[in-house]
């Protein structure tokens, strides 16, 4: 993958995809999208970057070890659950500090809270997990003599 066009294109594609991923994550509660889809989009961005510039560059660009990202996501999701437990006495109950129905029953305010934190956790787990495996798979060496295992039975 040493195509100049491809490498140059990634300079635009990767940031755009990442922004898109965050947007998809944020709008997920009301429109198609959410943590899983956003996370996969972001992972795709990382994969594109990695294919264009190699594992080392991708790792440097990420700065954080991918599995750490995944772990942080899990911690965020659990924290969201504990938040609900503290607020409502039940693990994973949604907490909406700035959002809720007005007198007419229409929800208004800033839709951020434990649910968004949870979805962010999902997002991070997917990005971290997928890029972690991808990087390691890419780094895994090929032995000098590759056994030819052509099957014939």
């Amino acid at each position, binding site marked *: 993958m040493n195509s100049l066009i491809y490498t140059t294109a990634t300079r635009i594609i990767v940031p755009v995809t990442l922004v898109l991923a965050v947007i998809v994550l944020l709008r*997920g*509660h*009301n*429109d*198609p*999208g*959410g*943590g*899983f*889809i956003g996370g*996969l*989009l972001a*992972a*795709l961005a990382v*994969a594109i970057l990695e294919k264009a510039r190699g594992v080392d560059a991708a790792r440097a660009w990420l700065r954080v070890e*991918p*599995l750490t990202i*995944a772990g942080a*996501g*899990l911690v965020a*999701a*659990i924290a*969201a*659950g504990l938040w609900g437990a503290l607020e409502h006495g039940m*693990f*994973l109950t*949604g907490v*909406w500090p700035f959002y809720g*129905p007005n007198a007419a*029953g229409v*929800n208004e305010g800033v*839709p951020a809270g434990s*649910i968004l934190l*949870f*979805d962010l*956790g*999902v997002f991070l*787990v*997917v990005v*971290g*997990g*997928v890029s*972690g*495996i*991808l990087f*390691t*798979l*890419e*780094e*895994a060496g*090929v*032995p000098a003599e*590759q*056994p*030819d*295992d*052509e*099957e*014939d*039975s």
Partner: protein
Amino acid sequence: MTSTAAPATPEQAGIWRVVPALVLAIAAGWFATFLPLIAQGEYAEFVVPWIPSLNIELAFRLDALSLTFALLITGIGAICFLYASTYFRSDPRLKRLLSLLTLFAISMLGLVLADDAITLFVFWEGTTITSFLLVGYDHHKKSARDSALQALLVTGLGGLALLAGLILMGQVAGTYRISEWVQMGGIFRDSGLYLGMLTLVLLGCFTKSAQFPFHFWLPGAMAAPTPVSAYLHSATMVKAGVYLIARLSPALGGTEVWTWTLTLVGATTMIVASIWALKQTDLKLMLAYTTVMALGALVMFLGGDYYYATTGAVTFIIVHALYKATLFLSVGMLDKMAGTREVEALGGLRRAMPLTWGIILLAAASMAGFLPFFGFIGKELKYEGALGVASEPLLVASAAVLANALMVAAAGMVALKPFLGAQRSPKPAPSDPPMTMWIGPALLAVMGLTFGLFPDLIGPTLILPMAEVVYGGPVPVEVKLWAGVNTALKLSIATFLLGFVFYWMLSRIRQSLDKEVPRVADAAEGYEILLQGMKDLAAWTARTIQPGKMTSYLRYTFLLMGVLVWGAILIGTGGIDLELGDVPIFHSAIVAIIAVSTFAIVVTGSRLVAITALGGVGAGLAVIFVLYSAIDVALTQLLVEILVVVFIAVALLKLPRAGTGRLRIGDASISVMLGLGVTFGLMAVMSTPLDRTIPDYFEAVSYSEAFGRNIVNVILVDFRALDTLGEIAVVVIAAVAAVAALRGGGQEVEK
């Protein structure tokens, strides 16, 4: 503690060695305080709920039968514990032995005191397990391990049967309280399950109490140390089966089947065991066979539906426990002090070991049933009972006489052979053991004489109440030493004469027995064959279904899945009622693309084609998801499909080519069967109306309660967030595991 023996290792100091014995002695004293209550035919009860939902209680009940056994367990237990602490004074494993013995004593006490059938069973198994550990006490010896395993398998198998039998009885009765069972005998006997529960319960009792053809494990169990044999395998555990037969006889007894089964099995056991007893030259083994014989006699008399037979049986339980424990312990003393248990190697020890001889004489006299010993009373009652048995008095009586005559000969062999004649023994200077060893057996032996001389001490207080419990009605019997010259006495005299003849001709009988009775009645042989057969079967099964080939495992798994799916389709009630509906061309085209791509993956040998086709399948599915209103799913599917292709592309460069190979008909059949099963199963599922309760609820509250318009996402992050949390945890774990697998160094695994 003075020592006349010369142990090689220093004695273990400490009072702890006698603590278990002391505790048991105190327990025996405590149980004895119940005697006046029991003598009036009363009982004591103690109930705690255990598993209320299953109607199982920790119920305990102390009546005459339980009390007798409790006294035997604690009293003889205290003596055996004290004896063991001296017998094993130089053995560093004494603590283990005493712990195991204590555990056993607790199990055994629980067994005889339990009033709830399940509680009883738990303790029953407790005795099986502790017995296993005690028989295998010398676990460095293969023979001990084999014997322990044999005992465990035989009694364990019987235990399973017993559990099934008890549950059957519980189901029929509607309660698991044994005290209620014994009052509802008619319900059991009229039940259609009577034969089943009787067979199962008796199987448990017969294996535990070493009845023919399961008797072989008991002589094998003699691999256990002598105090253990004396305690478990003569006085207490082997009587658990007899105890249960006695306990349940008011509930299950009184039928032809009951009487005949117990009579025949008991009589056969008795005769076979007495013949085998005469063959033995190892005194301990000989005693083991006479124990089997005594157990046979007990079973036979419990079968006789006659109160004299019952009284004879319950008396004999006490008689036997007293003299047999004494003899076992005394043989242990011979073994310890004179160096062997082989009767041929011993002689003339009357001067060197006078106390031991005295004890053995007393016990053997009771065993032979001489006047005025307790054994005489037991024997007279048995004969009286045998003559009164309605069904087959001749059979029962002659079997009893023959067995008792052989018993007289056996008693003579233990009591006379090692002590008369010229002195010889492997150890140069035999002597009596220390007091802590002989005091217990001496006490038991003296009791055998005391109860004979003063039967009122035990007759009305314990024996008759016990007989009434077992017989389930009043027992108009008097326990006395001299009942006048009657038929039973004449039979006794005949027994003695016959016994003396046997004793006289012992060596000749033994020789001919060796020749004439080669392997008959050796059920141990059958056990070996059965055991080997089971091992072979297991090995064959393992070889067949576990060939170590991954494809075989997969094949079995998928085959089974196919069978299950088809089974569900064929057995299931709902048919397939599905209309084709409208089939838009575009939809059909997508399905066709997926089908063709699928086919290409299967057929192609090219990695590139396969990867492309895989992407085609995934993308096609995404389109289907879009067409049928699943936007989120479609997006996910599409993104994952792209990533899968990226991953495979990265990895495949490092993996060999896939290859195609020829058509594998067998695998293709399995695949097609499972595939068709899924198709028809799915169509059957779709033919039933969909339950929309849950989606309706989600739709109703998604906005008002969870503040979200995308119901799928609301389900994921709010309604079912706990599931999602589990799922992302799985993703993290999979990632960590995959990274670990890939990074784990590149070294070759040793072949």
